[in-house]
């Protein structure tokens, strides 16, 4: 599995760490308990394209990657 770091270019997955679902947005201070539970714990587990944040150890950039969870094909 290879991903493209916006700074370094294409690299093997060994150089990255996954930070999970990229679509979640941190609730505003004072948001409901439900909103926080949704943000901290609840995750979809799609079989197919999934937008994720990954951390490139080399340049310390967090990037967004869309990966097909069935094949590990990186789509974007």
């Amino acid at each position, binding site marked *: 599995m290879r991903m493209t770091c916006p700074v370094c270019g294409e690299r*093997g997955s*060994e150089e990255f760490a996954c930070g999970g679902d990229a679509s979640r947005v941190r609730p505003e201070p004072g948001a409901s308990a439900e909103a926080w539970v949704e943000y901290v714990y609840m995750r979809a587990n799609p079989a197919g394209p999934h937008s994720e944040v990954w951390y490139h*150890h080399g340049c310390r950039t967090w990037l967004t990657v869309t990966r097909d969870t069935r094949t590990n094909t990186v789509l974007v």
Partner: protein
Amino acid sequence: MADAGVTLRRAEARPMAGVAAFAGAGDVQGALAQAFGVAAPARPGRVEGQGVAISCVGAGHWLVAGGEAGLPARLRTLLDGQAAVTDQSDMWDVTCLHGSSVREALARCVQVDLHPSRFGAGDVALTRAGHLDVILWCMADGAVGERFEIAVWRSYAGSLHHALHAAAGAFGVHVAD
């Protein structure tokens, strides 16, 4: 040692400073260009100007090496309010490599494509060697042919040297002073 495919040499200590631009707070590349007469690259790459080498090591992030011992202080004055400057003169262990098999040996150790068409003079890779985060430079050719430098955090120096020796062993290794 005439038949060594790879020659390793520990680089002498040199002033080094990290420069991280504050987003939207001035023109760090412009200031560096004015001070050193060379355009700092925006993507991983290395240029030389007026006794220092400037390597891009991340988004808005450079490593400046060489020059006078006061380099970090000079950069701090130069870039005041525009970038965070950190003294990294003692942070890195740098090894210089050359030899007829240097690319082949490095390819056994680092994860990036080292084909000359993909990694040539002036290129910089922020990658891994073994389990280690390293910075790899392809330097301009010298009298010894192709030259590379590889830097790792100082505490990892022994592990990196071990990995380099393991990778280069099959080609014959010469350790130069």
